């Protein structure tokens, strides 16, 4: 594929060739540089959410892992793969959590099949 001169120049100035850089995960806190008040509220809330409560911190970490796969956030996947191990979950439990996410995603598509069927029936003799 040919790239024009301007694009080539931009890439030279900015060597980042992918949108995601693993090193950016540890810079998460830097979002407060541009808006400190909201960032503080968010991180305080975030910290509270993941504490032991009606659900254990271990259960919450597994939920986070499953959600990370649903929202397909590579930072969250790295963070919660590590966090789940440090909360005492094992590989089998972690993979089952991801299957829960996959089942809901797959089910969410399939259950709309009923809507499709309703419409087809509406349009058909």
């Amino acid at each position, binding site marked *: 594929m040919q790239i024009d001169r301007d694009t080539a120049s931009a890439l030279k100035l900015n060597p980042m060739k992918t949108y995601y850089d693993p090193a950016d995960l540890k810079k998460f806190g830097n979002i407060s540089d541009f808006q400190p008040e909201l960032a503080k509220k968010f991180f305080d809330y975030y910290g509270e959410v993941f504490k032991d409560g009606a659900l254990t911190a*271990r259960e919450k970490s597994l939920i986070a892992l499953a959600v990370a796969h649903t929202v397909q956030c590579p930072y969250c996947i790295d963070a919660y793969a590590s966090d789940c*191990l*440090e909360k*005492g979950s*094992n590989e089998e439990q972690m993979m089952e959590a991801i299957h829960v996410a996959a089942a809901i995603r797959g089910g969410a598509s399939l259950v709309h099949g009923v809507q499709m069927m309703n419409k087809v029936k509406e349009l058909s003799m």
Partner: protein
Amino acid sequence: MKSLQASHNPLSNSFIQLEVLNTGDETISSLPKFSEKLRALGLFPLKPLNINTLQINVGKMCNQTCKHCHVDAGPDRKEIMTRETMQQCLDILASTSIQTVDLTGGAPEMNPDFRWFVEEISKLGRKIIVRCNLTIIVANKKYNDLPEFFKTHRVEVISSLPYYSSHKTDAQRGEGVFNDSLKALQLLNAAGYGVEGSGLILNLVYNPSGAFLPPPQGSLESDFKRELKLRFNIFFNELFAITNLPVSRFLDYLMVSGNYDGYMEKLVNSFNPEAAQNVMCRSMISIGWDGYLYDCDFNQMLDLKINHGLPDHIKNFNTEQLNQREIVINQHCYGCTAGAGSSCGGEIV
């Protein structure tokens, strides 16, 4: 698998390990010094509280070659404590009020004078801990009676079992170790170890099988108790969750696997001031196979002897001076202060 020393790995040199821990690459050299963290808490120089434990490393010989071993122990290590040095340890015990003797290795049972040493300590009426790797009990017929020997001398047994499944255990400790560990645990249980009401203590040690911190000790202990009972009808007293320190073979693993920088950052970012107050080096002295004195077993493996001009050999042991010493620290110490903290007895917070 060979030891780092036998495979001529540069990390078998403690000087190079200290270089890696302190200068490494840009990430490592930019990490705050452990001494700065202690200084901010008013804990520098770090001073002892009271010496209540002698941890004695009776040799580096072992029947296993675990991937995370900070001793770099293995069948190819021949360093063994002599009976003469053991006698010097006994003389010190007899002349002090130190109550606990913690025997470690290698596999301490492979030292030919191990049983004599335990018998002599027992005569002095001190609490004896043996860090038994379990598989030694079933490695050879001559070791099969170890549970009964331990029972006779009321030895507290502390044994590593990284997980209640073979996959993680064998990945860290070697092929077949899990099954042999189960056989040994069943023999210990049969002798009464870990059985309620017997008074015979069998504690297990969990080390993470990789570059992450241990989970909370309490919940992990519940998991281990439930699963070991359900799957294998095995019982034990307590589980100690111990952080892997970036020393020797675990340091090598971190570097080869590309996890070194991230792990060190994790340890530093997880620094817990409360854990810093309670580090084990404040209440123990570690003795090497050749009689030299250290603040802990990790310092021993980094060849960081008792410092600041104090006598550093068992033949010159001086309790008063040792109680006033400045404990030698370095970047690996972050391993004992991360999260809930870590010691040879597990969490410290």
